[in-house]
């Protein structure tokens, strides 16, 4: 076996950006543990998250109009070496993840103090950084097995993070355990699928696999691989029948964790699904298989309605938001199932818009829970007066969830309906707006509880501090901002969609 000598090309910091994106939080995690100081844990976490955010902006600026960056880890050229491949689709996801992380961390500073005993804080932030690393790695990499590795890094730290909610409610432990079992099964399915792919193509580099599948055509092995991969990732995405871990996990985890995860974890998993479906398996194969139209579309529609209905009947705000997330993921899957550029752009922009909306809402409910001791509707009744800023932010987030024009949620809903009408699928367009109306009902329950009901208990609460209000309002204002100034999100989404549909994204 010949070893390839890597050419010594002088590389600047900008060239190393793709790997820095993952390395910064990756190094910061053990740094936090080594430093061992509770005071330093948060600053280190925040700084590394902020740095990662800057890196993601720089990366997005480079690829927003359709280029690709290919970075060879260690100088080893693919397909033998591991490659990080950045294009509009994953740069956008990287931006979302790092952005959410940086905004949630100031919020976490306060909420973690309330939710978790002091002695665990250092390890909490270490795990948080590991989770961030994992998510970023999944998004940045161009090697299929690398996806699995980072996916498991992020998942394992997620299980730990969720279990931290046990100091408030012991059901967090069983929620974490259930998620562990289901998540591991999902990841293992993914690995099985990967194994079949490797057997069929002999390589692990995603671009290379795509080429070889394109050459060979589809065989039963490849189809089996597709099935396993889609189901495995589908579990992480919380596709309708595989979503049962989500409500408990989101409800019982500490608020900072839920805010972070709800906005990022499922979104990254959707990105992986998109990447495999379009870049690796190619749209041509997909049209052959017709999986999307006959399996994902019905499941997406069922998710949109069933989960929304369940959300309406919840009496816990946090749990309602969790079910609402399942429904919103249904929208994203619906956009993917359209298999058109508008549909994919709708899905990708909803990925972003829903992320910022849910971050705002979960942070809001966390603030309410902090002050009132719970998130049930009756506990938070009347908080509209006592905590006006938090409640106002929740209203904005709620309006974005419904999809009122002027908010981010509207933009993606618009694209979804447009995509449906483009394909002439009238019933689907009507289903989309009908489920938005369901969202009106469950959001309005919250608004009524906050503003129109008297507090049921003696209220000694007051507004939360700026550490928490700041991030909540940053997210709420971004919901409005990205609802009106849609330039960045739409350009990125359309570039990404065009690239994904073209199939061999940036392939040589």
């Amino acid at each position, binding site marked *: 076996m010949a070893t390839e000598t890597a050419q010594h090309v002088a590389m600047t910091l900008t060239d190393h950006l793709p790997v820095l994106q993952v390395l910064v939080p990756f190094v910061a995690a053990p740094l936090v543990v080594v430093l061992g100081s509770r005071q330093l844990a948060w600053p280190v976490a925040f700084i590394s998250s902020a740095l990662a955010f800057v890196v993601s902006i720089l990366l997005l600026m480079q690829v927003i109009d359709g280029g690709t960056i290919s970075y060879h880890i260690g100088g080893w050229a693919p397909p033998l070496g591991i490659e990080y491949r950045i294009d509009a689709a994953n740069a956008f996801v990287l931006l979302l993840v790092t952005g959410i992380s940086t905004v949630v961390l100031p919020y976490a500073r306060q909420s973690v103090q309330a939710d978790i005993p002091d002695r665990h804080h250092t390890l909490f932030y270490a795990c948080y950084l590991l989770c961030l690393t994992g998510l970023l790695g999944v998004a940045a990499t161009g090697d299929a097995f690398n996806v699995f590795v980072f996916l498991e890094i992020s998942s394992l730290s997620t299980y730990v993070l969720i279990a931290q909610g046990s100091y408030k409610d012991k059901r967090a432990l069983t929620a974490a355990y259930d998620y562990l079992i289901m998540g591991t099964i999902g990841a293992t399915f993914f690995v099985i699928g990967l194994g079949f792919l490797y057997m069929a193509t002999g390589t692990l580099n995603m671009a290379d696999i795509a080429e070889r599948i394109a050459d060979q055509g589809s065989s039963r092995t490849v189809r089996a691989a597709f099935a396993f991969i889609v189901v495995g990732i589908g579990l992480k995405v919380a596709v309708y029948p595989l979503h049962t871990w989500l409500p408990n996990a989101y409800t019982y985890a500490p608020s900072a964790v839920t805010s972070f995860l709800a906005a990022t974890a499922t979104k990254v998993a959707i990105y992986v699904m998109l990447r495999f479906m379009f870049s690796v398996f190619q749209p041509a194969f997909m049209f052959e298989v017709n999986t999307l139209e006959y399996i994902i579309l019905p499941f997406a529609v069922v998710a949109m309605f069933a989960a929304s209905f369940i959300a309406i009947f919840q009496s816990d705000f946090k749990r309602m938001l969790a079910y609402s997330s399942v429904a919103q993921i249904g929208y994203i899957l619906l956009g993917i199932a359209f298999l058109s550029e508008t549909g994919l752009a709708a899905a990708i922009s909803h990925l972003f818009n829903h992320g910022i909306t849910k971050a705002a809402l979960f942070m809001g409910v966390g603030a309410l829970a902090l002050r009132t001791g719970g998130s049930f509707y009756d506990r938070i009744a009347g908080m509209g007066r006592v905590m006006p800023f938090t409640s106002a932010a929740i209203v904005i987030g709620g*309006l974005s969830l*419904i*999809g*009122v*024009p*002027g908010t981010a949620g509207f*933009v993606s*809903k*618009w694209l979804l*309906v*447009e995509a449906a*009408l*483009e394909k002439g699928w009238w019933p689907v*367009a*009507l289903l989309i*707006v*009908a489920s*938005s*109306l369901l969202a*009106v009902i469950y959001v*309005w329950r919250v608004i*009524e509880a906050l*503003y*129109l009901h008297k507090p049921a208990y003696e209220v000694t609460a007051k507004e939360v501090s700026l550490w928490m209000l700041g991030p909540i309002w940053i997210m709420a204002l971004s919901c409005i901002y990205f609802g*009106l*100034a*849609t*330039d960045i999100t*739409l350009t990125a989404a359309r570039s990404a969609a065009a690239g994904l549909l073209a199939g061999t994204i940036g392939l040589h």
Partner: protein
Amino acid sequence: METNTAIILTMLIPAGSVVTNILFRNSPNLRDGLTLTAAVATFLTVLSILATVGNGTTEPMVLFEVFPGIDLAFNVEPLGLLFAIVASGLWIVTHLYGIGYMRGNNESDHARFFACFSAAISAVMGIAFSANMFTLFLFYELLTVTTYPLVAHKGTPEAIKGARTYLGILIGTSIGLQLVAVIWTYQITGTLDFTKGGILEGHIAGPMVAVLLALYAFGIGKAALMPFHRWLPAAMVAPTPVSALLHAVAVVKAGVFTMLKVGIYIFGIDFLAETGASVWLMWLAAFTIIAASIVAMTKDNLKARLAYSTVSQLSYITLGMALATSMGVLGGGMHIAMHAAGKITLFMCAGSIYVATHKTNISQMTGLGRAMPITFVAFLVGALSIIGLPPLGGSWSKWLLIVGAADTGQWVLIGVLMVSSLLNVAYLLPIVGRGFFLAGDEAHAKIAEAPLLCWLPAATTALGCIILFFYASDIQEFLSPLVADS
């Protein structure tokens, strides 16, 4: 001042008033005075636009691009300017009335009330000056959201229930139907800009035109076309200044204004006439006119009766658009102003009666006319305008509508308009009659006229109904570019 600046100011001034209401919530006179100043300022700004632009149409001013081909943009055109004048002018009147009502009735949360009021007016200005369907839709939804707290203001279980119906129907129709219509329009034409003569010609044909029109007509829930009219009576749980606002100024007029804009600038009157797509709408509007009037006759609660009267009157305007003739459109546009003046008078009188006597049912109001003469005379004037008798303004718009109906050869519709006037007499005049000509309880003798801030605005708008009669031809002249061949 420069027109584009003026347009932005008409939205910013009320928005600023929201802030002052919150900031000065504990100093009632300062707070209400500032809001009054804002109302006057907004009206003057709109008048300045009138002075500069007259009944011309300006170039759209683009704020920013939201989707490719769709911007947040504003411009001035005759119908919108008329709507803005009506809305901003009546805001002054309603605000004065609102001060009187809220203080006279000892209502709670004045600051929140006036803040939401101002926010709603800001949204109305946005609707009036929108240059494309997207901008209009955005402010339309904003109007729903900002008026919800007003409807739910009292916080009682009835208020919450009424507010739910209000929101449910309005958002249900706008997201469920109107949004689909808007996206469909964009998808087939690539634009949503309001263009004289419509943008749909050539892109859509056959029964699809009627389907699209149906999506718009039912989607514009604020126009209270049956069967999506239930929100209007449900919203009566709100304090009366809100009902005056909803039924004369903001919400309902925004609804029929949108209906007219869609008819004139999205479909195009000629296109509608050619394809005959609006014939079904004519009949539905006619049905609503009659049915709502009949229901109004059965209501003993004064505000409920007025609510159904509004449902009926709104369909006059919808009918005007559906007739797809120039007289019909002009009549509809003029009716925006005429009905606004008349209905706001009626509602303010109803509210004055409530403030003075705490009575809400007509059967309880016998003989009150003698105790509250100004209120009841104002009510009479408003009623006559709604009925459509000269020398009140309402007669002109009704006349134009009848001519428009004659133009289409639909004699039945003329009959409908006539019958509706008779029904209006039947449900409005008895109230006045009871008040003046029947003997009431002794208790009524002790009742005095409503506070100054309540009867004066009502009297003013009653006077307005009379004055509008004489300016009706000017209004028709003003609106004529809408239907002229350019």
